[in-house]
Structure formats: structure tokens, C-alpha cells
């Protein structure tokens, strides 16, 4: 018998009697009066920054001037101008030189600062991890209270890859001292539009 069949057979023989799944009642989970304020506070506590904007015009200008200066920036947001869409063919070595990536976030979570990104927002799965600095743009109205609400909004398996990303890369592996910028992005700024 194959390993697979043996394992499955043993599980069938040894599993306990069927018990039911619990019903998850969202009425019992935390509510926030001000989702935007809650989101900002949490994100700042985990090392990220927030900027509130009415619209994208100032960010668009910033991006253009950085490009003009010759900074290696990658834009994935159509509303900010020309989108880099040939990223899939770039190697890790090439992407490692990206200074700042601009990516659209789909849903942001007030309780923990996380933002859901679909693979299609990234252009290349490596981009939000390997870039030195990360800028994510979200709509104010896309902030939800908790992870339960977030999973209702997204379809996590819609694309080949997706991530909840909360703050810049970090580690505390050396004597529990928090250091921002472990392997991934050294900074995260979230622009909240609307």
C-alpha cells in the first residue's frame, strides 16, 4: 500500500467521532467607532506610516519627480500614471534593485493593520517583499474592522497567490530587540484615499 493510502487508512481508523463546526457569529466580535483612526494607530504601532489624502494628485507628482530623478521606482497603480507591467519577466536580481514599489491594496483591516494584496496587484509575487520601500494605496472605505470581515470581502483563492501584509519586514531574533527591515521592505507607507 502506498504511504498515502496507509496514512489515510490509519486516520480513518483512529479519528474520533464526528463533531460539528462552530457557527461564527460576527455580532460578538470587536467593533470600532472610527475605523480609520484604529487602522492608523495599529499600523503605526507595528512600524508602518499612514498619510491621508483627498485624491492621488500629490502622490502622482511625487512619483513623477522620483522617476525624473532616476530613482528605480515601480508603479502598479493605473491612477498614478504609467504602470510597469513587464515585471513578471524580471529576475530576483533585477527586482532587488527596486527602491520603491507602489501597489494598490484591496482591503485593509483595522484590528491589525493588515492589507490584502492579490498577485495581480503586484505584477510579480516578489515585488512587495524584495523592494527596499513599499507604498500601498487604499481607499478609506475599504477598511474593515476584523479579519472575519476581510475574508468576507476577498476571495483568497481567486489568484495563484495573495498576502495579508502588515507593516514593514521586521525581526526581534537578536535579544528581542526590534529591528525593522529584516529581509523584506524596510518601510511601509499606506496612503488612505477619500
Amino acid at each position: 500500500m502506498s504511504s498515502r493510502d496507509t496514512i489515510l487508512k490509519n486516520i480513518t481508523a483512529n479519528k474520533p467521532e464526528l463533531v460539528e463546526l462552530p457557527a461564527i457569529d460576527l455580532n460578538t466580535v470587536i467593533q470600532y467607532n472610527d475605523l480609520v483612526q484604529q487602522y492608523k494607530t495599529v499600523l503605526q504601532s507595528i512600524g508602518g506610516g499612514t498619510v491621508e489624502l483627498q485624491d492621488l494628485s500629490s502622490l502622482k507628482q511625487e512619483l513623477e519627480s522620483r522617476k525624473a530623478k532616476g530613482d528605480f521606482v515601480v508603479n502598479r497603480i493605473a491612477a498614478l500614471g504609467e504602470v510597469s507591467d513587464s515585471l513578471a519577466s524580471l529576475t530576483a536580481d533585477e527586482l532587488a534593485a527596486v527602491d520603491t514599489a507602489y501597489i494598490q491594496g484591496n482591503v485593509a483591516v483595522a484590528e491589525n493593520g493588515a492589507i490584502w494584496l492579490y498577485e495581480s496587484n503586484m505584477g510579480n509575487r516578489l515585488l512587495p517583499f524584495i523592494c527596499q520601500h513599499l507604498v500601498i494605496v487604499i481607499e478609506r472605505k475599504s477598511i474593515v474592522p476584523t479579519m472575519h470581515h476581510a475574508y468576507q470581502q476577498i476571495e483568497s483563492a481567486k489568484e495563484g497567490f495573495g498576502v495579508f501584509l502588515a507593516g514593514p519586514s521586521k525581526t526581534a531574533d537578536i535579544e528581542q530587540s526590534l529591528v525593522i527591515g529584516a529581509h523584506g521592505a524596510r518601510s511601509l507607507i499606506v496612503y488612505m484615499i477619500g
Partner: protein
Amino acid sequence: MSHTSTLKHAEAAAQFINDEPRTNWHDETLWFVRQKRDKAAHGLPEWEQLREWASQIKNHTLSNLDNYLLEFERNAKANGVTVHWAMDGADHNRIIYDIIQKNNIQKIVKSKSMLTEECGLNEFLHTKGIETVDTDLGERIVQFRNEPPSHIVLPAIHLKKQDVSDTFHEHLNTEKGNNDPQYLTEAARQHLREKFIESELAITGVNFAVAETGGFVVCTNEGNADMGAHAAKIHIACMGFEKMIPKAEHLSVFLRLLARSATGQPITTYSSHFHKPREGQEMHIVIVDNGRSRQLGRADFRNSLKCIRCAACFNTCPVYRRSGGHSYHTAVAGPIGSILNPNIDMRANADLPFASTLCGSCSNVCPVKIDIHDQLWKWRQVLVAEGYVDTTKKVGLKGMAFLLARPRLYRFAGKMGRGVMRLFPWLVNNKLNPWYKQREMPAPPKQSFRDWYLQNKK
């Protein structure tokens, strides 16, 4: 002979506590992590409800595990992922070795996976002349030092920054005596970025596997699992079969609990959901049994398979904090390791269920409500009945004896307030401690304790 084996933890622990300042530091550092966990837990009014949901979801999953594994396999295959099944560690290692050979792979990066530690993957590959680079910072540090991780979430928690500085000076040529964590982390970042970029194979663990979607979720703070998996042309994800959960929506419950329980963070920086290989990439999943189906059949111990490896039970354990992870001589240390390891090898790990005061603090913090201390107690009965220990009484007291028989370990009178709760967390939250029934607890100075209690009961 059986007697000797029950002494192993105690002996290793005795060595650990020889360095008293370091032991105190270790103890305090982990207690600090436990306090961060408390703060995060108290921030959510529904915390107990979440634990209950998590526990029930896991109970349900275990009761229907064969069907969920089949559903997962079917969906993962449809997503273009190759699914392998491994009976034990040797099987797991061979499957990975075959993939390496078939693709003629030289460069391998690995993110944290306690399963690959359990299976001895690095050592196995080493005997085949293949080196893997561990990419979690803590794991890289201990790998350089030829040590195993001492904690499942904080692999290098037993080391001071001077130790890391010396290690990096030797291996990465950093400045001698520069102990700045920022500087040392930056050196590791540069070193490991090179490794990610040139890697051909990335091996990762799995935190949760979702039957409904065939996908799996990997959680890190550093981003190392993603750097490896998205750069390499082959990704192998290794999982014990108990990582299964039924639906994607259940991830919300577990992701809310995991990081809060582990480090007090609201969530890990990256919770990555893998479903399909990227264009041109190969993705494999190795589903491992290695004794788990046997544990599933032990009614008293099966719910240890609910564990999500948050390590909250380590951080709160008065024995773990003062004996260090290496004294448990197994990949998964701490209270939960002391339940899982006797199942894998009763003789070799008969000492572990005795490395506990049975205080119950572990069960109180466990996000999936495993009755850890009850199971430790039950393992003692089994091990005695099976003849792996001499007499119940003698060893029954071992865990407590370790902590209390050495005066310097509870020289806490001057440090009340904090000390009582740290050394005896069960005084406030556990009335069913068998040890407590047999003996008088050393009485803490009444006034201080009451002060503490009054302050904390609200």
C-alpha cells in the same frame, strides 16, 4: 536505564542554570513575551470566544481529517501543485532528496519549519553532500553555531547579542565587538539576499492548509519564506497533516490568535496564501504523518494535534523559562513538545512529561485550548505503566523538584510582585494541580502577594 532517561531533562537543565545571570535573563525575556501576549489578548473582548472557536474548528477537523485531506489533495492538484505523502521523517527526507536530484539542484534556502527539524532534513541532506541555508534570522544564527533552535518561534532566544556578534564576526566578517542588533541584522539581510537571489529551491513550512481551496498559508515577520518561495524555480512546502482547516474563512480565527499568542503582535507581517505555482515554477506539498495518526488514535492525547505552534505555552512555562529549550533534546521543546515527543519515541523522551510543574499555565494560554497539563499528567501514568520510569512518586516530583530543590531558583522574596506570578503562575488560575495537593506550596510573603493580587484581579 529507564531511570537514566527520566533524568535527561533535569540534568541538562541543571547545566543551563549554572549560569545564574543568564538563566534569569532567559526567564525574564520569555516572561516579557508572555506579558505582551496578555496585553494583546486583553485587547479583544472576544478573546475567549476566539479560543473556543479555534478549539472547535480543530476538533471538528480532526474528526473528519481523512476527508479534508482528500479534499485538500484534490484541490491542490487542480491548482497545479504536486502532492506527496510521507509516512515518517525518512520518507519526507527522501521525497525532498528525489526532487533535488531530479532537478540537479545545488542551492537551497529554507524558511522556518519545525517539521523539517523534526524530520532531521538538514542533517540528512548534509550526509548527501547538500547544504541548505536557513533564512529565518534566528535559525541562521543557530545554524552557523551548529546548534538546534531552542524555541519554535524564537529560535535563538537562548543567545545574547554578544554571542550573535561573535558568530557573525566569524561567519559574515562583521566588526568584532559590534553588538548592535540593527547592524547585525543588516549584515544578515545582505548575506541572505544573495542566498535568496541565487537559490534554485525554496523549502518552507505551512501554518495552515485549507481543504476547500487546496491552498496553504505561511506566516513570517521577516519575509524570508516569500523571498525564497517567489525567487526559486521550485517551492516545496512541508506540513504535518494536522495543519488542515476546512475553509478559508476559518483562517480569520487562527490568524487573529496566532501572532497575538506568540509575540503579542496583532498579526505577523506577512500571512502569505499560496494556491498555484507562478508561471514556470514547480510547487510541491509534502504531507507528513510521522506518528501523528498514532497520536490521533490515543484518545487522551489526540487533541495535542490541534497545536498551531504559537509557543505561548513555552513562554509561560516556569520550567521552560528556567531550563532552556535545549534541555528538552527534541525539535519541539516546551510543554507541547513534552506531549508530542513521547508519541514519537517513548523511550527516548520519557523524561519530558516530568519536566513540568503541572501548574496549568500552559493550558490557560493555549489559543486552541489544548489541556496540556492534563496530558502531561496522563503521559506520566502511561510511561510508568509501560516501564519507562522507576516509581511514580520519585519521578512525579521531578519537575517540581527541579524548580524548588535549588534554593537559588526561588530566591524570589526580594522580587515579589513580578516574581510570584512568574514562578507560580498557577497560584491565581489553577486549582487542580496534583502536585499542589501533595505538598505545601512555599508561602510567598503575604502582604506582597495580596498587593499583587489586588492590583491584578480587576
